[in-house]
Structures are given as structure tokens and as C-alpha cells.
């Protein structure tokens, strides 16, 4: 066992709630604290993104420390785009030394999406190999190169999966590989298509993966019909059914945000009933003030003592 709050709660059978905090594009610690204060008492752990969409921001590690000072149990997100195996392992050791208990292993968005499309990507290892690396460092006390680790990083290991990406048929198999590599909790891409998610979960359950790895279902409230349409057409691997867009279009513009929140709450309530789903990951990008409202309406507050 690690010191992770979510690992402890999952072990007790609690339906966990996580959210995320995107660090600012600057050295403003106050901005991190401000976002953190919106999530205080609302979530069991908070993800801290790592230069998400390849846009330079305050590092995940540094922002994690700020949130930790506020009493959070942060989840350090780490992508393989910007660091080679030397930097990755060194950052893992540093984070664990500072009492970070959770890591989320990701490949990372391609740099062409971000503010430095001319940068050179690294991808020395991929997300699967990153999971393997953390597990080997923690459980066997060894680095990729074979050297011994003195002071093992005791991290609860997570990953992400997109149940809606292609090829659909291997998506559960791919999760199986991640679990084999050492993944203990999984946060999914935001779910709008419950039916397809259900099919994916079926494949996950067939393989018994939900028993070896805690599946946290991802949700993102839609602010407007325009945002829904944008997500559908412009975000690769995002599945937004037309009925949902129509439902948002069916209410006046100034009421769409409210409707989006309602949809999100309903989604969480339905996800809670899906066998094998053990928590929810609420990603309200630049709309963090709504997380508390959503969690409350979905019957997920208050949270158990950390």
C-alpha cells in the first residue's frame, strides 16, 4: 500500500471523486491556490496536468507541491513527450521524496497542437513503458538501466484510456496491457456516449480488469451547444452523440451552461450504476468553480476525511 488517499478509499470500497487542476501559464502560485480552493473538500485527489495540449505551463510537479501544502493528495501527471528516461525517473524520485503519492502515466498530446510546434518531441518511452518503469522502481527497486534505487518511490500508479478511440476492439486489450504493466487506477476520457462506454466496460469486465484496476469514469460538463459541436468535430477521439448536442440546442443560449451541468450530473448518476465503475473523474476545464456544484448534485458530497 502507498500513502495515497484514493488508494485507501478505493480499498474501503468508497466511490471516489477526482478532478483536475491545470497549472497557469506563468509563475503565479496564487493561481494554483485559487483553483485548488474551488476543489477543497470536494474531491479525494486532484490531477495536475503536465503541459496539457503541449502548451507550456507551470510544471506539474511544482504545482503538485503547492496543492499538497493546501492539504490535497495530488496526482502527478507525467507525459513522455518532453522527457527521456533519465529525466522521467529523476522526476519520479523527486516527486516521491516530496510526498507525492500518485502518478498518472500518459503518452502526451503531440507538440503540433501546442504553443511550440517547432519543438522536438522525445517519446523515448511510451505510457505503457512508463507504467512499467514506475512499478519496477517501486516494487523491485530498480531503474530501467538496472541500477538499484535507494529509497523506493511509493506511488499509486494510474493511467488514462480513451474508450472511444479506435480501433475500438483492442481498447480493453490495451487496458489489459496497462494493468499487466502495473496500472492500478484508470481515468477515462470524458464520456458522453454511455452506450459505447457500456460496451467497453463489458469487454473490461470480461477480462476481469475492473477487479485489478479501479476504473474512474471521466466526465466534462458542456458549456454550450457550440462547445459540444467543437468537441465532436475537432477533438480527436471524442465521441459526442447528436442527441446531446440537440438537447443543448433545444434550450436558450443563456441556459445552455445550466443544461450542460444537468447533463453532467445525470451522466455521473448513470455511471455510478455501471458495474465496475469505482469513481468519477470530473474534468471541468477552466470551469473548476462548477465541480463542487456537480459533485453535490450527483450526491457525492461531502467527501470522507482525507
Amino acid at each position, binding site marked *: 500500500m502507498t500513502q495515497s488517499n484514493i488508494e485507501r478509499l478505493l480499498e474501503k470500497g468508497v466511490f471516489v471523486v477526482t478532478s483536475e487542476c491545470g497549472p497557469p501559464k506563468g509563475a503565479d502560485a496564487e493561481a494554483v491556490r485559487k483553483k485548488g480552493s474551488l476543489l477543497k473538500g470536494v474531491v479525494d485527489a486532484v490531477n495536475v496536468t503536465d503541459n496539457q495540449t503541449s502548451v507550456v505551463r507551470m510544471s506539474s510537479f511544482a504545482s503538485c507541491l503547492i496543492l499538497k501544502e493546501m492539504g490535497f493528495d495530488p496526482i502527478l501527471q507525467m507525459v513522455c513527450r518532453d522527457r527521456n528516461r533519465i529525466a522521467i525517473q529523476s522526476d519520479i524520485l523527486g516527486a516521491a521524496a516530496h510526498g507525492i503519492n500518485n502518478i498518472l502515466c500518459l503518452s502526451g498530446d503531440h507538440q503540433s497542437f501546442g504553443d511550440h510546434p517547432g519543438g522536438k518531441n522525445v517519446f523515448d518511452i511510451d505510457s505503457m*513503458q512508463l507504467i*512499467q518503469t514506475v512499478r519496477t522502481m517501486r516494487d523491485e527497486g530498480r531503474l530501467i538501466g538496472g541500477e538499484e534505487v535507494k529509497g523506493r518511490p511509493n506511488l499509486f500508479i494510474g493511467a488514462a*484510456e480513451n474508450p472511444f478511440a479506435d*480501433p475500438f476492439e483492442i481498447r480493453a486489450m*490495451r487496458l489489459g496491457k496497462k494493468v499487466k504493466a502495473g496500472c492500478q487506477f484508470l481515468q477515462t476520457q470524458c464520456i458522453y456516449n454511455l452506450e459505447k462506454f457500456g460496451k467497453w466496460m463489458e469487454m473490461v469486465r470480461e477480462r476481469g480488469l475492473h477487479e485489478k484496476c479501479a476504473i474512474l469514469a471521466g466526465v466534462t460538463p458542456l458549456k454550450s451547444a457550440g462547445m459540444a459541436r467543437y468537441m465532436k468535430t475537432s477533438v480527436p477521439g471524442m465521441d459526442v452523440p447528436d442527441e446531446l448536442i440537440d438537447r443543448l440546442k433545444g434550450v436558450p443560449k443563456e441556459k445552455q451552461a445550466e443544461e450542460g451541468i444537468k447533463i453532467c450530473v445525470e451522466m455521473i448518476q448513470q455511471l455510478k450504476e455501471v458495474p465496475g465503475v469505482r469513481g468519477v473523474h470530473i474534468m471541468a476545464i477552466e470551469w473548476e468553480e462548477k465541480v463542487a456544484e456537480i459533485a453535490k448534485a450527483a450526491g457525492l458530497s461531502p467527501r470522507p476525511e482525507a
Partner: protein
Amino acid sequence: MIVGNRKPLEEIQEMIKPYKKILILGCRECITVCAAGGEREVAVLASELKLSRTKEGREIEIKEFTLERQCDYEYIDQIKPFVDEYEAVVSMACGAGIQYTAERFPQKIVLPAINTTFLGVTLEQGVWSERCQGCGDCVLHLTGGICPVARCAKSLFNGPCGGSSNGKCEVNKDTDCAWQLIVDRLKTLGQLDRYEDIIPAKDWKPSREGGPRVRIREDLRLD
């Protein structure tokens, strides 16, 4: 083959600005096949440069010459008798050929007219596509004959990432997702079970060991 593109005319014009007598040197290997630096392209570049210099009122003398190969001294030496008559050589070979010409004539200015891009294939007349990055440790037997290094935008060894959609890569809707291709091919071959194996962190030593890689076949050496 090695694929390259000719540099834009303006860039070449800028490089040759100081010179009045140049030699444009093509190559008959890959760069001819990909229609970037063979005899024909040498002629086109020569006439474009002459025309533009005539317009500027600064005439230029250009010799056109195309070698069998620019990656072999045996052939490069063919220009030995006359190379000194020219102030600069504009090479239309791949990056290897350009460098080898420069190595052979250390006193000579050798300028690149080609942007060398990739190791690839001819998809159709006039279309070439990358297939290999020369990583030095081929894994094609594990990935259904499709290269994850060169063809996945993130060089993932355990793809596909979450951005793979309708067979296309998240980076570009016109680019096939390499991992969709790999999964499809493994299925065709009845080897989808291989997908379940985790490919461990790659040893990049054969690729980026440090400095240029050298290959030696002792049995073929002369001394």
C-alpha cells in the same frame, strides 16, 4: 530509398550570391528517383538561377554535372579535373552525398540544394511516403511489418494512443494511424495475440549511440 525536396529557389539564390561561377552537381541514385536532384532537376535549377541572375544584371556561369553516386569517392573524383574552375559546388544529392563531396574537396565551398527528408517508398507517380527511420534495431516482426518508429507520430511501441480516430492519426486527418494499420495487419496475419505482449523500453543505442554510426564488414575490407 532516400527522399528529399529541392530547396526553394530564393534560399539557393541567397547561398550563391557571392559567386559568379558554380558547379551544380546531381546524383543518379535515390534523389533522381524521387525527382529532386537528378540530371533533369540539375538542368532546371541551372536555368532558373541563370535567368534570375540575368534579370539582376549579374551574369553567372554554371556547369551542370550529374554523378552516378555522390556517396562514393570513386564517382566523386570524376569532378576532380575541373572542380577548381568553380568558386562553389551546389550539390543536389542527399545529405550524405553533399557531405561526402565536401569531404573530398575540403577547400571548396559545397552548398546544399536539397532538404533530405526520409527513407521511403513511391506510393504512386509523384508521391513518396516515409517508412523507416533507420533506428538500427528493427521491430517489424513484432508489429505486423509496420514501423511504429517512423509511422506513428509519437513513435509509440505500445500504441495506439487515445487520439486514433477512424483509422487516422490525431496529428493529421490525412495520415493513417500506424497502430490502426498494425492492429489490422496483425489480425490479417492471425497474430493479434502478439498485441497483448508489452514491448519494453527500446534500446536506442543502435540509433543514437553518439556520433555517426559505422558499419564494418571485415570480409569485404581490402586491408
